[in-house]
């Protein structure tokens, strides 16, 4: 019986002591919780960053489309301003892009290879740029959004004097001024 009393007494003292220590520990925890809270405060910003990622991927797509519009030239036969099926496909894609970007105005440069004479080539470059413009207008793009400038043979992309270089230089090039 005495033993039981001792245990009861011990419990009487130990339990509140335990409780005390627990409360002490709880205090410490709340402190750490505070720290956690401050961390969680940052969490929403992290989430924002994560939200932005898919937007950037969209941007990349937009940028790629824009770059394709700017970098994809159309090519012509010697002394010709007519558009072959490849050029027409490229121009159709350009019209799609212009429809997706209705606020953008573009400029088409008409270029020639070095063969032939400067005066005639300036006129030929003009015809090339104008024929590309006419094709886009036929596809429903507003004419006022498209300006043209002929460079004739003055601005080759390839300085070579062979058919490979000439083929690259007989081109229509697109710019967003």
């Amino acid at each position: 019986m005495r033993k039981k009393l001792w245990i009861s007494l011990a419990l009487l003292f130990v339990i509140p002591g335990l409780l005390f220590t627990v409360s002490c520990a709880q205090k410490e925890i709340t402190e750490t919780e505070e720290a956690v809270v401050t961390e969680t405060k940052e969490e929403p910003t992290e989430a924002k960053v994560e939200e932005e990622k898919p937007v950037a991927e969209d941007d990349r797509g937009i940028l790629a489309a824009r770059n394709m519009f700017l970098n994809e030239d159309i090519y012509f036969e010697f002394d010709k301003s007519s558009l072959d099926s490849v050029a027409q496909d490229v121009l159709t894609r350009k019209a799609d892009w212009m429809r997706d970007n209705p606020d953008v105005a573009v400029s088409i440069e008409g270029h020639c290879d070095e063969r032939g004479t400067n005066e005639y080539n300036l006129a030929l470059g003009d015809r090339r740029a104008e024929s590309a413009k006419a094709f886009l207008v036929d596809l429903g793009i507003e004419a006022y959004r498209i300006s043209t400038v002929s460079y004739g043979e003055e601005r080759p992309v390839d300085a070579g004097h062979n058919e490979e270089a000439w083929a690259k230089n007989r081109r229509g090039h697109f710019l967003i001024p």
Partner: protein
Amino acid sequence: MKRIQIKIISLIVLTLFIMPGLCLADYEYIDINNPFLRKIPIAIPIFANLPDSETKDSVLKKASDLLSETLEFTCYFKMLDRGAFLIDPDNPPLITPKINFNNWVSIGAELLITGGLALKNDRLEVELRLFDTFKAKRLVGKRYEGPADNLRQMIRRFCSEIIYHLTGSRGIFNSKIAFISTGSGNKEIYICDFDGFNLKQFTNNKKINLFPAWSSDVKWIAYTSYLNGKPDIYIKNIKKKEGYVIAKKGINIAPAWVPGKFELAATLSYSGDQEIYLLTGTGKIIKGLTSKYGSDVSPSWSPDGKKMAFVSNRSGTPQIYIKDINSGQVERLTFNGQYNTQPSWSPRGDRIAYCSIQKGQSNIFAIDIKSQDPVQLTYDTGNNEAPSYSPDGSLIAFSSTREGPSRIYVMTAYGTDQRRLLSLRGEQTNPKWSTNVKWD
């Protein structure tokens, strides 16, 4: 060989067509219609000091050499070697009774020029005389006086007198050549005298500048420039810096002044098609000169301003056509080859020089307008382009890649005596020869 034969036959044919014109000229020294097959042997001994003058020998030699080079530029003469002369070089006789013409006839000289010079206090006096050695007769005698640095002008004036006496034309000695050079890294317009002397940069805008064209009075140059990002025509007064701009939508290119007028023709494409228009010197449209669908470019006027040669691809390939301004009639001139451009109408009126591309090579041709018979003037020497006649029609300036980079060359209207005019950095193209201005 075959080509040479064809060339000679063509020359003979051309000469036959031009024969009627020969009767009009009563000069027997130079057959202006075929003057370069036989050059006139001419002797130009070193100039002497005029009485009471002690000009240095080096100055005397320089002056006589300058006369010799200036005359030689015309290609009419064969300069005789001074080493063969039978005269006392220290005491050369200058005037008729003292000259022993047999000394000159015996070394083959048909013409003789004597010169006397005095340089006193930066004032220069020059006496120059041209003699016919066979007839033992003075043909031209002139005396010039002025500041010492006017020697070149005095020599040129005398050359002008000589050529006038021998051919009936004032020649080229007060004319200029404008051209494009990339020496600065951009296509800029430069101007020099007919012989390449006195080089000056005319445009300096670091953009593409093309197609300089002289007004008849040589006071204005019209040209195409990308100053505002597209090809517009700028009309500039050379001395006063004033000017006008033709900046319509599309291209505004290749102007050509109407002879004797403050008007020009040029290709504009604002209508959607490249057409040639007649414009005032201030850039206002007077009327359209072409209206066929296709590119119409490179106008070049007949000397009387009544006809205009131009390039059109209305038949499918670029060919040269002539439009009669009054009747409105258009006739095709070139039928040989698939690419004939850059017409330049001879100031003599009878021929048009142009650039023809055959088998991938550009060459200069000249075509008689009546017979429509083309003569090839350059052969197997790189690309030869942009012919421009001298004001007397005796020479043609053009560009050629025969030595690698494009340079300006000069040849006779018959294709002989081809030589480089200038040696500059970069590439030179599109020479345009001005008219010959009267001396002040």
